[in-house]
């Protein structure tokens, strides 16, 4: 099992789906951000597996880039969260309706 591309892709697919489900269903903004990270985990796993089994470095490079992008995304997301806490003390995505205040 550990020698087949399928098994890694399967685990990656499950993680990605769980993350997507979390983004769709949860309303706490921080859990939504965490779910996005979970999706990225699934994607990373698939990319790494493709790279290993195709004997190519492209997947590993993409994992590195996705790490950088995940860091950037988390930083900006959390900064928005801090700004939100300054202006409206509200952390549920469906209650944030106004574009500016």
């Amino acid at each position: 099992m550990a020698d087949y591309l399928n098994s890694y892709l399967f685990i990656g697919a499950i993680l990605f789906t769980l993350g997507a489900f979390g983004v769709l269903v949860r309303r706490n903004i921080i859990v939504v951000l965490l779910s996005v990270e979970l999706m990225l985990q699934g994607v990373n796993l698939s990319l790494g597996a493709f790279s290993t089994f195709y004997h190519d470095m492209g997947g590993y490079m993409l994992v590195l880039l996705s790490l950088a992008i995940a860091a950037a995304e988390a930083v900006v997301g959390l900064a928005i969260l801090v700004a939100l806490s300054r202006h409206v003390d509200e952390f549920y995505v469906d209650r944030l309706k106004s574009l500016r205040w």
Partner: protein
Amino acid sequence: MSDLACTWLGLMATIFGLGTVLLRSPVHSALSLVMVVFHVAGLFVLMGAGFLAALQVIVYAGAIIVLFLFTMMLLNLEQHDNEPHMHRYQKWLGFPLGGALLIEATWIALAQANPSETLLGKYSPERLSELGGTAFGIADAMFTSYLLPFEVAGVLLLAASVAALSLARKPDEDIMKAMPDMVSDAAGSMTQPSVQESKLNQSPTERGDNH
């Protein structure tokens, strides 16, 4: 042995992934995501990419999720631990869409056979161990065919840090109030530096009287 490890790591990653999505407390969610990161790192080790596993733990577990926890503690998010129940739309759309995505992704994942010999790239495990490990293979690729994406990622990180600074900065009322005066001072006649300094120390109303 490695089959067992693969099954175990996958199973635990799934369980903790479920925990991330379903646990009510955001702090529990974050800690559960840390466990997912560990298990994905374990799967990377199983593939023979120890370098990526270490990077994964350093960046995700060591930086990103700590930052999440830090923000949660800073804003005291636990006070808001009364997440309302799901919307009608979320219930009717979220579950079918999630299920459809799972079926689709699983179907594609399971249809993917191991690649045939003709499709393999040049970084075989033998060549990688010749180079000295995955890290050297990645370096080899990074500074040849992937140089541009690598540098763009650097610029992206810089942009993100600047954006975070300007978003999270506390709006400084004193600076905002002093701004018109300072602008007019700079544009107007040359004033002595000492005068300008003393002006800055005055309160806004006093400064208004000076004009």
